[in-house]
């Protein structure tokens, strides 16, 4: 299998996602998310240059500014204000979750030829995108706090973004921008809801939210 630098950066992003499975500290989780997203921004720029499509550099800039800097910074601010430092998982403890993440990464690597669009030439990246997607879901399911679920969602979204970037001739740019905008506003709204949850329940532990089960 030919490994391009795109595949390499994608693997870096997926590796960071695996590490996130085993980390409980909120600040380090957020830093890893930021770094992972920044790698995707770099991939966007590389592809933009190789396709000779300068407008993709704009997208790379927006991804870096919004998804790699603004969103993690906002979440870090929220965590700081609600004095959240750690999120011990439920169901899986750190070590088991880390192993599960490794398993997902390996499985995705072997699955990559099946989900990749061969003529695009980034077979490895397709598998890494799948790994991000599944690990994002794993993080959402095995964490206690509402904030971590937002984090898991962002990892999942990164996976979709990576797949779209490497397996197509480039999604239409306006739509990519629209997606980034939706994610940004979505995170802001989620932040507002989490602040209010924290204020009225005095915690944001989603496993304790059971008022509506009839």
């Amino acid at each position, binding site marked *: 299998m030919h490994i391009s630098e795109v595949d390499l950066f994608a693997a870096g992003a997926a590796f960071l996602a695996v590490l996130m499975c085993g980390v409980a500290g909120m600040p380090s989780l957020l830093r890893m998310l930021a770094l992972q997203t920044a790698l995707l921004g770099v991939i966007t720029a590389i592809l933009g240059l190789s396709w000779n499509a300068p407008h993709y550099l704009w997208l790379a800039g927006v991804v870096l500014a919004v998804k790699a800097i603004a969103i993690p910074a906002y979440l870090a601010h929220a965590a700081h204000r609600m004095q959240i430092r750690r999120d011990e998982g439920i169901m899986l403890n750190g070590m088991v979750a880390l192993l599960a993440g490794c398993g997902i990464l390996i499985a995705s690597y072997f699955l990559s030829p099946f989900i990749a669009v061969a003529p695009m030439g980034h077979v490895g990246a397709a598998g890494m995108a799948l790994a991000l997607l599944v690990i994002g879901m794993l993080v959402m399911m095995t964490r206690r706090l509402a904030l971590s679920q937002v984090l898991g*969602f962002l990892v999942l979204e990164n996976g979709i973004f990576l797949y779209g970037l490497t397996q*197509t001739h480039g999604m*239409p740019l306006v739509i990519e921008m629209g997606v980034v905008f939706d994610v940004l506003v979505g995170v802001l*709204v989620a932040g507002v*809801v989490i602040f209010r949850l924290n204020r009225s329940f005095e915690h944001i532990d*989603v496993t304790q939210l059971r008022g*509506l089960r009839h």
Partner: protein
Amino acid sequence: MNALLLLPIPILFLILGLIRQTARWLPALAAGLMIVQLGIACWVGVIGVCAPITTSADFGLDGVGAAFLIITTLVATAALFHAALLLPAERRETPEISDRQLCQFYALAGVFLLAMYGVLLAQNLGYLWVAMEATTIVSAPLVFYHRSRHALEAAWKYLLLCSVGIAFALFGTVLLVAAQYPTGAASLRWHDLLAVAPHCDPRLLRLAFIFCLLGYGTKAGLFPLHNWLPDAHSEAPAPASAMLSGALLNCALVAIWRLAQVMIAAGDGALVRQMLVPAGAITVLAAGVMLVRQHDLKRMWAYSSVEHVGLLTLAIGIGATPLLLLHALNHSLVKVALFLLAGSMLHLYGTKSLQKLSGLLRTVPAWGVLLVAGTFAIAGSPPFGTFLSEWLLLRDTFGAGEYLAAGLVITGLTITFVALATHVSRILFGQAATITKPAPTAAWSVAPAVLLTLALLTGLALSPPVMHLLATIGGVVR
């Protein structure tokens, strides 16, 4: 050009809603403006039905879009008309609700309406996704209007589950682009997709459809992805519940319909049928079973919405687009009336618990009569339009040879009828509750009464020419 006329009034809501000082007169103004908006939407819609409007390469109005545009605007008009009575009355009695909160409701409602228009007008499945996610983001704050713990929990569940669901639809949309690699195209424009579909990679196209169905199916509330729906629809204030149930669910179904057309164009109609017919039939049955044990009036109507989403999905599955339009109209009319009534009752009684509501026919006879009519209509009894659309849908399901699905649907509808009749009769009869609040004026009955009359008319007016018209609307795109 015409379609742009839809924009000014919702934008005005947004602007006025951001100014706190408007709280005193904004509800009444919004109700009035929405009636103007309904006129505009009907005009634009009728033009769209006659000949598709193309605003740009990515936005336009075809027959199905136009039909749902009119339904959506009608729902929003009824909801905001009723909101002009309900929200200020609530505001007077609960000091916790601030002017700002009330204004925010209108600002969000305006953007929500715009986002739904975006979904209906998008002729590009990428824009459709962006607009659909926007509807989730905007309507989540509407759900926690009351700021109660339950409302917050419901809003969180709604925002998270629907965002994850919609993320799958995004993956599906990306796969739609990827599937076009053999043709060298990379377009998400619906008409381009219909044209290139036969030459796409069939495996990726199937994956794309399945992921999109998973995503938009979550948004539509298909069983077993419906989990968030009863919470969000029951905790939102009644006008918002009405819009979520009567308009937003339709938007998700339009998305599924557009994708189904792409698959049919690709010659893979069998997959559409294999997925949608069982999904719809099982949803109807499951919703019927869940309706039996209900303790909450608004949750009951929310589960009933799940049931009707099942019926509408079935209509898409068997390719009965005219029935999709007809039943969506009927369901929206009746369900909005019922949610608005439920909101009024919640306001008057101070509870929506089925155990505590009783004697409505004696307390407020007009509402009692409306509730009886609405219940019969939603359960699909003649002479209401719902009866005819459900009847025709069953006929077509049998005609398509889907006997098992038809059997499940009949069982589900029967259980629903019995369950609804039992719950509602308990509300209607029994001891009249002692109400301390002043008796509601006749204005409170106007919106539900008008909607139910329309639902009656769709039943009485259904004739071969109308069915022919619906068939033309559904077929304009082909």
